């Protein structure tokens, strides 16, 4: 009996010890912990590394927004340096219209300040200049023999008038330039206001690379309400174009000047978008 019990017990003891050694246990424990630590490290660093990328883009957007109108309003003349693109767009429109459009002004706007009255004074010389060429041809065919004096007198008068007119024109040109500059300055103020308003509502898509440029043609109603927006030049990124258009539509109504200035500059104007200002 005792012999058989021994023989049964002994293999059991040995069986427990052999297949797994103490070194195995230690190694397995260590490997399991190392594996988990490695995986956790990969997960934490991998994910945080991915997450940090979009954040700078967001920060740029928010920091740019308040600066835009603030910088532009106190220093309108500096704006060309700050925003090279928006200015050239409206500028070409500014220079051609003033000459023809100055004359119709008086009718709609009697209440404009002194400057406008001076303006009205300037255009007068222009019609005179047109009259003058007439007298010269007239004397030659009509009164060759009868009244040379008259012709001389008229010629002298014409010369005088020409000189006066030239002087007036010079002054007018200077004044016009000054006025145009002032108007441009004021326009810039409004444009900056509009830009600020639109940029504030702009939700940039996250995958923008570089600084692509999108140009929209914005048509406004006199009250500042949006009539129409059309994309003139795509930035190449449809998501960005759509975001900009949405922002324009959401930002209305805009603060616009009234009357003539509106008709001239804000009825329809191009708007340049850049993700980074």
């Amino acid at each position: 009996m005792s012999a058989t019990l021994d023989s049964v017990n002994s293999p059991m003891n040995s069986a427990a010890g052999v297949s797994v050694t103490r070194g195995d246990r230690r190694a397995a424990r260590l490997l399991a912990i190392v594996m988990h630590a490695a995986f956790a490290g990969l997960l934490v660093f991998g994910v945080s590394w991915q997450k940090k990328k979009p954040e700078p883009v967001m920060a740029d957007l928010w920091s740019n927004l308040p600066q835009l109108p603030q910088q532009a309003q106190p220093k309108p003349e500096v704006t060309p340096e700050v925003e090279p693109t928006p200015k050239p767009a409206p500028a070409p429109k500014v220079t051609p219209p003033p000459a023809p459009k100055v004359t119709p002004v008086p009718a709609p706007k009697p209440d404009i300040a002194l400057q406008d009255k001076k303006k009205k004074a300037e255009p007068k010389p222009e019609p005179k200049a047109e009259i003058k060429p007439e007298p010269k041809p007239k004397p030659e065919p009509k009164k060759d023999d009868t009244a040379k004096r008259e012709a001389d007198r008229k010629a002298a008068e014409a010369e005088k008038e020409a000189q006066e007119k030239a002087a007036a024109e010079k002054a007018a040109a200077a004044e016009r330039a000054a006025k145009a500059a002032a108007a441009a300055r004021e326009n810039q103020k409004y444009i900056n206001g509009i830009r600020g308003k639109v940029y504030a509502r702009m939700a940039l898509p996250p995958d923008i690379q570089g600084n692509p440029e999108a140009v929209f043609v914005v048509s406004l109603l006199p009250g500042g309400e949006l009539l129409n927006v059309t994309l003139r030049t795509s930035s190449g990124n449809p998501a960005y174009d759509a975001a900009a258009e949405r922002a324009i539509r959401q930002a209305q109504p805009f603060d616009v000047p009234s009357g003539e200035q509106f008709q001239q500059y804000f009825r329809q104007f191009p708007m340049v978008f850049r993700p980074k200002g």
Partner: protein
Amino acid sequence: MTPSHDMSILSLITGASVLVQAVMLMLLLASLFSWYYIFLKYFALRRATALADEFEKQFWSGADLNDLHQRAMNTRTEAGSMERIFEAGFREFMKLRGQPNMDVSAITDGTRRAMRATYQREMDELESHLSFLASVGSVSPYVGLFGTVWGIMNSFRGLSNVAQATLAAVAPGIAEALVATAMGLFAAIPAVVAYNRFAGDVNRLAIRFDSFMEEFSNILQRQVH
């Protein structure tokens, strides 16, 4: 409202509710233990296979059975399963043959029973902890899912108190909750793979032991005559 929450994994875990955190801790422990057993089983099975190979080579190289038995007795603590089966069978055979008026079938049966007993014990040892891996593989996805469901439930309950329902109000809660499912899967997948692998290995060893037992019984039966 802040535009973006801190969505790193660590903040997701620390921001989760207590129950979800408990689930995560459970799953982490399950994963740790399952990997511990995975490595342990891997070492053990690799050694068992190597020892069986070595013993079979010795056995079939025509060595004397008494010598083999002597060696098995001496190195009992580091012997392989097959060697131990051989040792138990041969010892029983010697005892039975020493006794008077035993017929051949009684000796063979007794030897076979002794070997069978050792075989069962060895198989039990080889298969130990495999059931743990199987449980982790099948249960931890459900545990993780439970944590996720609970977390999502809470985040939707929080949503009911907000006047304006936004995705930003629920998204962090859902993300936190989903971490639990991820951890459950993370614990389960290796456990299932390892279980299948180890179960196959143990099965192959069992077949080898079985066939060895049959062949050894034949050899002993021939020796009786």
